[in-house]
């Protein structure tokens, strides 16, 4: 009897000890003795971030820094959104700037107004760069890089098709004609590629759709949001024109590779097939591809890139003849933010100041073919000497931005879904417009979605 009650007691103690120690370890893990700064960023920004971390560690040796890099292939926006929602986001997060309004509205980001006001470097950030990171009058981030978009084309394919090099189309018809010429003259090549569908995510909307929409009608009818009325635009001649272009190249003339939009790795496939594999004649893409994809240290390096890869400005549909912009490009970019629930906001701000130093931003931009968001980047020789960056400087003169109002990510998703219907099911532009409108109304309500009459 005594034996049994002894083992009863031992068992009880062991169990309680086990549970207690688990709880203690858990608590200690969540509340470390040393100050810890967690930094979350995507792999494309690995080099400048790790460089900045080294500098930070030298300046603050007592702080433990945890670098949380999101590798290529992982959906950075989905991961960061999930982390924010679960309350486990890092102290410093490098976010895709279009999410800032929605993150701010959800209360995930710490306002930086007072901090940037006291920061001498803030004056080098132009008004557009400040607008992107602001929401309802407060600043929530610092832009690290920005970009533009253009028509990439293979000079070798164009030469083979007898098309002029260098090439600069003035209307959408010019583009279509060139693509049809390539189809006739060069075998085994997809003449043109524009991202479509939901697998590409935001890239469909930015590199694909906005590049068409912004040049499809007179401003402000060429947008997704009406800033005067505060409503989303669900039906318009511009939307129809943009959907029609997708229809023409994917369905009517079959000039574009539908399949590439649905492979497991859409980015890798696109970079490879345009670059080393030479399977695409021309495409709409971002300015970063020059360095990040096809450069010597890129993901899919093209050996004689300078000779073989060309870029041209995207024209408005009739080259400006009907009041639409003559040239179109759109800029996005990634911004450093501080998590609202961070317990080390002071350290986070110190890191932000270090990572956004002029030389670091300019050198990173120069190496990867990105556009620096700071006006004083031109003072840094690596940036000023970069002929590619100097060539695309003029794009900044006519660049535009997406309508990143709260709810934008849903609108963008509907655009992606609609293009998906067009390329997969051959949906006509008119039906596609109705489909898009019905989704908008279902989500936002009829009174929040505007119609610009067709034929007006």
């Amino acid at each position: 009897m005594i034996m049994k009650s002894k083992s009863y007691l031992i068992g009880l103690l062991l169990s309680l000890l086990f549970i207690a120690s688990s709880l203690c370890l858990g608590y200690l893990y969540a509340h470390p003795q040393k100050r810890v700064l967690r930094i979350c960023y995507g792999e494309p920004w690995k080099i400048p971030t790790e460089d900045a971390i080294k500098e930070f560690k030298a300046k603050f040796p007592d702080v433990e820094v945890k670098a949380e890099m999101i590798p290529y292939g992982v959906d950075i926006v989905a991961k960061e959104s999930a982390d924010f929602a679960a309350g486990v986001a890092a102290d410093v997060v490098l976010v895709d700037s279009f999410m800032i309004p929605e993150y701010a509205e959800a209360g995930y980001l710490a306002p930086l107004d007072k901090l940037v006001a006291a920061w001498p470097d803030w004056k080098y950030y132009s008004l557009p760069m400040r607008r992107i990171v602001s929401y309802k009058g407060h600043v929530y981030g610092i832009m690290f890089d920005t970009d533009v978009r253009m028509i990439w084309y293979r000079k070798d394919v164009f030469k083979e098709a007898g098309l002029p090099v260098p090439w600069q189309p003035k209307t959408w018809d010019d583009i279509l004609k060139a693509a049809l010429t390539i189809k006739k003259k060069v075998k085994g090549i997809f003449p043109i590629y524009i991202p479509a569908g939901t697998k590409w995510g935001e890239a469909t909307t930015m590199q694909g759709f906005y590049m068409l929409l912004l040049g499809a009608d007179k401003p402000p009818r060429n947008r997704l949001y009406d800033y005067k009325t505060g409503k989303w635009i669900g039906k318009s001649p511009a939307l129809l024109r943009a959907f029609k272009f997708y229809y023409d190249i994917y369905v009517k003339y079959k000039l574009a590779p539908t399949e590439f939009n649905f492979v497991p790795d859409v980015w890798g496939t696109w970079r490879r097939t345009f670059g080393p594999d030479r399977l695409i004649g021309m495409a709409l893409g971002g300015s970063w591809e020059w360095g990040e994809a096809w450069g010597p240290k890129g993901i899919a390096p093209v050996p004689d890139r300078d000779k073989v890869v060309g870029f041209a400005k995207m024209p408005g549909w009739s080259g400006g003849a009907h009041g639409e912009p003559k040239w179109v490009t759109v800029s996005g970019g990634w911004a450093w933010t501080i998590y609202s629930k961070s317990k080390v906001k002071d350290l986070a701000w110190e890191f932000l100041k270090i990572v956004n130093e002029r030389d670091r931003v300019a050198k990173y931009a120069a190496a990867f073919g990105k556009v620096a968001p700071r006006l004083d980047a031109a003072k840094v020789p690596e940036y000023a000497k970069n002929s590619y960056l100097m060539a695309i400087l003029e794009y900044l003169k006519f660049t535009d931005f997406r309508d990143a109002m709260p709810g934008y990510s849903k609108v963008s998703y509907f655009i992606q879904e609609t293009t998906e219907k067009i390329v997969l099911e051959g949906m006509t532009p008119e039906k596609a417009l109705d489909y898009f409108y019905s989704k908008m109304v279902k989500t936002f309500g009829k009174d929040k979605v505007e119609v610009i009459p067709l034929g007006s």
Partner: protein
Amino acid sequence: MKLRSSYLGIILLLPALAVMLAFVVFPTIWGVVMSMTNASLVGIGAAHPRFIGLNNYISLLRDSRFYHSLSVTVIFTVFSALIGQVALGLALALLMRRKDIKGKSVIATAVFISWVIPEVVAGYMWGSYASREGLLNLIIKALRLDRLGIEPTNWLFYKPLETITIANVWRGTAFSMILFSAALESIPNFLYEASSLDGASSWDRFRYITLPLLAPAILTDLILITIWTFSVFTMPFIMTGGGPGTRSELWTIYIYRQALLPPYEIGYAAAAATLMFLFTLVLIVAYITVLKRGWG
């Protein structure tokens, strides 16, 4: 005395119970609670979620995409779990018992490797294997299978559901094989000897001895495989992501896309997950009832 030892048992189980409560029971309850709100990952729905009762369920039952994912999942499960893994697992287990098959260790190794490779790796492997320039098409070309009407193509684009089904059979058969091997071992040999003395053919032996005695194992396997296949996510997500469009959108992928891609609607996804939970529960009860009655 009996009472004391059962107390001891319960106490020793406490840690495991705590883990179960924290990681299984609580999330399930929390999921049901969330399914009645408009909680979202970002935006207003994240900062101030509102209680909306059964609205999510009503929208779900009106959503054709929800029913589509249900039918895709059912087709996937029937072909992959029932026809694929159980039948193939049984066949392989029977094969392994024969003494005259050469290369048994090669087959066993191949089956196990498919099971232990991490799902993400396996997903990308299949992504490469089934691509236009992949090994599968090379094999098809080499064996001139176009004579049988099998053309090399981009399998993940043109036949997404078929490809993920076969990939899942490839991956999951090992479990059934092991289960059936163990069950077969337990069938006493003298039954087979006695039956062959009576002049039974090998098909008779299978039908009248093996199958009835394997019935409990088959039932167990069916239940487990069905539950698991119903919740398969990683490999198909990597291979096709539910696409193209929604052609291979399993229930799990549908839920993921509702929650972690725009529209980021966690509440809605939680409702779908709860329905999936109930559906699986009903299936299991049905299994047990029907098969228990059948095999007596």
